[in-house]
């Protein structure tokens, strides 16, 4: 793979399970060295797409390439460079944590040279790892799953709902880990329906809905499309040409109190206000969640 090549390239990906279509022609490029979010509600097709990339499912149509290798034709070679965390971590319950980690390490072609570091980061004691996995809590199993995905230090990580079951401290540890790995040039594709997680960790993102990608871009792009509100209270009645501005969607309020709903940046709106006597003004910054929902609702079903 050359440095210009995307780490993940997906073209016209379709997946059908009998009469059900899970993916309806996805095109996606994940640049190398970024943390990329794959977001959408349950049943949108995120997990199906990630399973195809991990070599667990075969696409019905289209192709998927990771690190320059077609995952169907060169499955084993591609898997050797991927760290995969399934959406629901299910380990061998009758085996200990150590046994699970050792087995998964032995089945990889890369040496697990980050294993000790990961165990320390995620605070799994030797005593815990010597217990059978069936005695583990959901969070502990998730930690073992994350360690198993990262222990070989693969150049590409595909993580399905990685922070599920982790407590806030461990979530913070996980975010730190992603930031460090991204700085080291690794590529991370993570799916989530927790938008705050995507907001904290991702450089770019794709939104999936009903098996289609409805948005691809940066978080700033999402926000720029979201509805925001400028709330201004003037000292005296003011008549401003808000509706002449192309990004203004709605204007409400009274002669003194203006509530302006708009999209994109507020620069043009602020220029109208700057010479007038303002008593109070607030600019509501849309959270990613609001932006996402606003964007999501706009899309035709």
């Amino acid at each position, binding site marked *: 793979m050359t440095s210009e090549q995307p780490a993940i390239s997906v073209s016209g990906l379709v997946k059908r399970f009998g009469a059900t279509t899970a993916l309806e022609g996805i095109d996606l490029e994940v640049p190398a060295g970024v943390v990329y979010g794959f977001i959408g509600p349950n049943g949108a097709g995120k*997990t*199906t797409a990630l*399973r195809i990339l*991990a*070599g*667990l*499912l*075969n696409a019905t149509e289209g192709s998927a390439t990771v690190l320059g290798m077609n995952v169907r034709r060169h499955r*084993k*070679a591609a*898997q*050797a460079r*991927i760290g*995969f965390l*399934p959406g*629901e*971590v*299910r*380990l*061998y*319950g009758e085996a200990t944590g150590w046994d699970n980690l050792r*087995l*998964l390490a*032995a*089945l*990889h*072609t890369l040496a697990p040279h980050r294993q000790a570091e990961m165990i320390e980061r995620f605070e799994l004691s030797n005593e815990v790892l010597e217990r059978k996995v069936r005695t583990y809590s959901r969070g502990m199993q998730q930690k073992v*799953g994350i360690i*198993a995905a990262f222990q070989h230090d693969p150049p590409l990580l595909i993580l399905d709902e990685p922070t599920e079951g982790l407590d806030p401290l461990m979530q913070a540890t996980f975010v730190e880990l992603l930031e460090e790995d991204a700085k080291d040039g690794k590529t991370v594709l993570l799916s989530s329906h927790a938008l705050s997680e995507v907001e904290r960790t991702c450089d770019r993102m794709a939104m999936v809905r009903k098996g289609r990608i409805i948005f691809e871009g940066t978080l700033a792009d999402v926000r720029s499309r979201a509805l925001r509100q400028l709330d201004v209270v003037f000292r005296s009645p003011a008549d401003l040409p808000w509706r002449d501005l192309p990004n203004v969607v709605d204007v409400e309020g009274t002669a003194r109190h203006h509530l302006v709903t708009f999209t994109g940046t507020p620069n043009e709106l602020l220029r109208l206000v700057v010479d007038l006597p303002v008593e109070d003004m607030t600019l509501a910054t849309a959270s990613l969640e609001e932006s996402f929902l606003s964007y999501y609702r706009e899309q035709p079903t």
Partner: protein
Amino acid sequence: MFGTLLHTAWRRHRHLRWSLSVGLFLMGLLLAGTYQVFGSGFIPDTVFQDSGLAKTFEAFSGGSVSVLSPEGWLGFGYVHPFTLMLLIAWAVASAATSVAREVEDGTIEFLLSRPVDRRVMLGARIIAWAAGSVVLLLADFLGTMIGILFFEALADFPLAGAVRLPLSLVPMLVLIGGVAFLASAGSSARSRVYAAALGFTVGSYFLNFAATLWDPLGPVAPFSFFHYVSPGEWARDGIQLGPAAVMVLLGIALFGLALTVIDRRDFSV
């Protein structure tokens, strides 16, 4: 990697393998031990033949060797429903765990997202099952041999004949294993593996049983693989290569199909 997969598969069924081996050892010993009681002096052969019992035992034991002879009695032990049950339990449990249970438990996602050749993974599990089958047959053979050595009525039983008794089951086990592993490779539920392997074996058993006892069904007997399973004849007459080769080749073809299926199928839990 293959060594790790083989070791894991071998360890996984150690308790089952041990308990089934004990059962088969006792079965071998029991049949050898009971020949003293049910042997040639028990019922005069003419009475046995005239009573219809001979045909009933033939239906149970397979082949034309009289159950009152040492070969027939010991051979009967190798196709006794209890012996078959233990051997089938081994094949079905090994096959069901190899893929279908991993899908049910969800562990398959971790396993097959590693750079593991799916055919190598299944191949290791097939080899572990085959090695376990050898252990089980050896346990049965050991029980039989101890019986032969300790009970006077079987003192003249030839060693070569005794060795051919467990060998006669190998083609049948390859065939049942092929069906069970193919069902597991293509399915996501253990119950389907049980249904396929048990349905095939039990159906075949009763087809042969009914065809042997009831003349109008006689022509369909060759469609049951049990028609070709006759440990008594193997012990008395030697290896019956033709039917054995057909069953082994068919079984190997099913294993080959299982390896193709697992390589191409989807895995989602």
